[in-house]
């Protein structure tokens, strides 16, 4: 039973920690003795805070943590991806969007109960994911991709609503950061029976689920109906996550971290992983929440627990990644090609190139002014002063992100990989955020410096954490996920606080070309073209690396050097684009996928195609974003995910 000892010790450690924190947070409320009395007395105003706030809050934290961890284990097992978490299938973003839309369009719905609106939104989002993956029997790769796209899409829609309605939606930002504050036993009462049912169902499914450790084919030969097993398992996971999200908001990281930590600690069998993850998840969330309460009493400000779990969980995961072995780990499913390979890509590429050129001309010559639509004439051509930098920046960033995305997806053979996921954007954005909020009046040069510094620090961290593992793609991505989570946590805290500067932050983070001037834009485009040239000598690596580590080594590639080189190039590209248009453009994820859907599978055409698509996408997004709601501008990054996401979903449905 040595396999069980380490996870058990870990849980014990966290239990002790949580107990200590509980005692600390009880100090101002009269100590543990009084809390104990409160638990067993009649509800009365003598114990008001203990009975209506402290105990319900602890119960909700334990329940929610356990539920998220169970959901995480199920997701990771079913999707065969250690990066999968309860949010992978779009539950949180669906719930978030539903709540936003309801607050703006049909506030009456919220009177029926906020949790039901959230639950419905989460269920709809997951239904969409399932629908997209149904024809492929919910194959992990397709489900993960569909989930990712749906997530991005709903997230972008939510972001757009937020951008134009920050005042009305400020309450939802607190929910989005995951505050555990309780006013009574309502939430605990809602969660308890649902979590119990979910947990029981998960235990009933353990045996068939364990079969999934085998390959699809062997599992099928043992009589497991993969499609329905996946539907049932994902359904339970989404139900659990949806209940938690609807009651306490978005709690980052528990569902991702608990199962991974337990696995890294040595629990291999599914039943063990499920058991210890559940415990660990509950303890992690409760411990964090108790810590938040004691801190909050001192800081006299609201610290949302969900954001803190992410902020604490990220360093924990970073610390664990290089230390523990990933021995029990299956290799990720190879990125099987999603569509027919095209043998003569030249015509397609030429078409894309013409498309970019045409879009460029339209974007420069056609637009709206105070008198409506007009073509550029000799009198009005001073408008180019405003249009040119945006068009150039859009092209440059589109190209950079598309190249970065192609590199990292080929490097890791993971369909969820994108430059955003490597954490470079997140790191760079964190530094920029710090500059905006801490410096009195930061100028553009200052912001540039801060952003570059952030990107470099993140890169250093990536190198430090991954040097010994020889740049194993799995670990690299986990590192990136941790950094990205840290960034999202920070953002959630800042936005939840209701600081009016949050609006500026939202505007920049949605990926706008608004803030670029002509020299900077020209520089970006030039740098992007140079980077594209730098990719040419790497094509051999890029063709071979997706075939796996053994094959690559056998073909004479020095794996570590290749991975480090590609990583460096990706970081530079991502940092460059992030500095200009913010971290959330998604083009890095979408463009390589779209190129692949068009049948460009070999490294050369894939890179070129993705680059052209990236440019086209960003140009189109920037232009449409500026015209659609004129004089309001929808940032290019948001628009790109709305346009590209719709195309990707359509492509996935056709598979």
């Amino acid at each position, binding site marked *: 039973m040595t396999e069980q000892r380490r996870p058990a010790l870990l849980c014990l450690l966290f239990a002790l920690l949580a107990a200590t924190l509980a005692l600390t947070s009880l100090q101002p409320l009269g100590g543990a003795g009084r809390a104990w009395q409160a638990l067993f007395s009649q509800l009365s105003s003598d114990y008001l805070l203990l009975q*209506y706030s402290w105990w319900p809050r602890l119960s909700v934290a334990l329940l929610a943590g356990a539920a998220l961890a169970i959901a995480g284990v199920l997701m990771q097992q079913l999707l065969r991806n250690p990066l999968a978490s309860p949010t992978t299938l779009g539950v949180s973003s669906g719930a978030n969007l539903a709540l936003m839309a309801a607050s703006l369009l049909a*506030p009456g719905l919220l009177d029926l109960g906020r949790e039901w609106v959230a639950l419905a939104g989460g269920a709809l989002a997951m239904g969409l994911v399932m629908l997209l993956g149904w024809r492929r029997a919910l194959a992990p790769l397709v489900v993960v991709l569909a989930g990712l796209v749906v997530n991005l899409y709903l997230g972008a829609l939510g972001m757009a609503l937020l951008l134009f309605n920050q005042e009305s939606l400020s309450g939802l930002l607190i929910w989005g950061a995951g505050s555990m504050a309780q006013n009574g036993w309502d939430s605990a009462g809602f969660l308890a029976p649902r979590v119990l049912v979910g947990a029981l169902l998960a235990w009933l499914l353990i045996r068939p689920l364990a079969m999934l450790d085998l390959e699809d084919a062997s599992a099928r030969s043992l009589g497991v109906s993969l499609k329905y097993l996946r539907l049932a398992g994902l359904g339970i996971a989404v139900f659990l996550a949806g209940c938690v999200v609807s009651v306490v908001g978005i709690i980052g990281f528990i569902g991702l971290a608990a199962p991974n930590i337990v696995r890294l600690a040595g629990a291999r069998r599914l039943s063990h992983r499920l058991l210890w993850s559940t415990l660990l998840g509950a303890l992690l969330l409760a411990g964090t929440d108790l810590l938040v309460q004691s801190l909050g009493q001192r800081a*006299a*400000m609201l610290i949302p627990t969900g954001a803190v779990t992410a902020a604490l969980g990220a360093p924990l995961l970073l610390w664990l990644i290089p230390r523990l072995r990933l021995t029990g780990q299956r290799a990720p499913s190879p990125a099987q090609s999603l569509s027919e390979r095209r043998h003569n890509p030249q015509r397609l590429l030429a078409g894309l190139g013409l498309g970019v050129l045409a879009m460029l001309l339209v974007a420069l010559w056609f637009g709206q002014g105070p008198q409506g639509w007009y073509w550029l004439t000799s009198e009005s051509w001073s408008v180019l002063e405003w249009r040119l930098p945006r068009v150039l920046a859009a092209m440059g960033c589109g190209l950079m992100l598309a190249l970065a995305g192609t590199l990292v997806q080929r490097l890791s053979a993971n369909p969820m990989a994108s430059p955003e996921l490597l954490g470079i954007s997140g790191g760079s954005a964190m530094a920029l955020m710090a500059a905006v909020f801490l410096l009195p009046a930061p*100028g553009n040069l200052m912001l540039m410096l801060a952003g570059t510094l952030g990107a470099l620090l993140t890169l250093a961290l990536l190198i430090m954490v991954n040097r010994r593992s020889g740049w194993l793609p799995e670990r690299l991505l986990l590192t990136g996920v941790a950094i990205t989570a840290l960034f999202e946590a920070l953002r959630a805290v800042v936005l939840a606080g209701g600081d009016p500067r949050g609006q500026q932050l939202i505007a920049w983070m949605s990926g*706008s070309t608004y803030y670029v001037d002509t020299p900077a834009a020209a520089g970006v485009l030039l740098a992007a073209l140079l980077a594209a040239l730098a990719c040419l000598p790497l094509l051999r690596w890029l063709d071979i690396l997706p075939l796996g580590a053994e094959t690559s080594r056998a073909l004479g590639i020095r794996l570590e050097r290749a991975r480090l080189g590609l990583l460096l190039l990706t970081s530079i590209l991502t940092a460059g684009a992030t500095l200009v248009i913010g971290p959330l453009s998604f083009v890095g994820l979408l463009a390589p996928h779209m190129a692949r859907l068009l049948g460009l599978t070999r490294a050369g055409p894939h890179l070129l195609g993705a680059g052209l698509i990236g440019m086209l996408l960003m140009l189109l997004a920037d232009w449409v974003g500026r015209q659609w709601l004129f004089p*309001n501008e929808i940032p290019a990054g948001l628009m790109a995910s709305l346009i590209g996401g719709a195309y990707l979903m359509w492509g996935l449905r056709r598979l």
Partner: protein
Amino acid sequence: MPLFALRFLLLFALLLSTITQASPRLASLDWTLGETLVALGAPPLAMAQVDDYHAWVGEPQMPDSVIDLGLRTQPNQELLAALAPERILISQMFTNLTPRLSRIAPVELVQLYTPGTDTWTQMLELTREVGRLAGRDQAAEQLISSTQARIDSLAGQLSRPQRPLLIIQFMDARHVRVFGPNGLYQVVLDQLGLDNAWTGGTNAWGFALVSIDALVGLDAQLVVVEPKPAGVERELASSALWQHLPGVADNQVITLPPVWSFGALPSCQRFAELLSAALEQAHD
């Protein structure tokens, strides 16, 4: 908006500015400066997020002739350049836009709610500064004296509550903003000579975001500023903690219609009037 209407509006705006002559063509990114301009009788040529101004500031009403510039954080540059205002007024929130906007017209930064300064004094300075920029110095002095006189007269006949006031705004059913120093509500409380029950810290914008349990144990007259987000009413009805706060069970909570909490003199006067009327009613 149809083309001809836009043209008409533009013509109208042009006409207006030639008739009133003295007032230069100003664009404002900020609602607080916008409301001051309207109160001075010199509405801006263009302002950012006009629709949201109607929803969140409301009074004084922004005339329909004011052209919408789009988001406050990203005012439409092509449109702004085409309108060619004489000056662009911004608050400290938008200083990062100064370099690019000053290519269109001189940018004037008018500050309010700077931490560490007396808000009321700064509000008066802001009014004079905006008056100077709009060529309405006299109107500014008038606005200041009339607001001061109105608030003084309200303070004189105020029915003072027995407990200090706790001014909150609901974010959702479990979280509220509590308002304190360096904010509009505090300025009005000071001017009316009323006490604030919140002694905890606040941020640079004069409020603290807290969960409802932080209000337990405060002996205060609760004042809720609307809007309440949808669904909050229902959840509060079953919230044990809220029901136990002073005055909630016996319906003593004062509810006020929305007032722009980052506003200038016009919003101040509005809040003072609403608050004293509500206190009057609670007293009866």
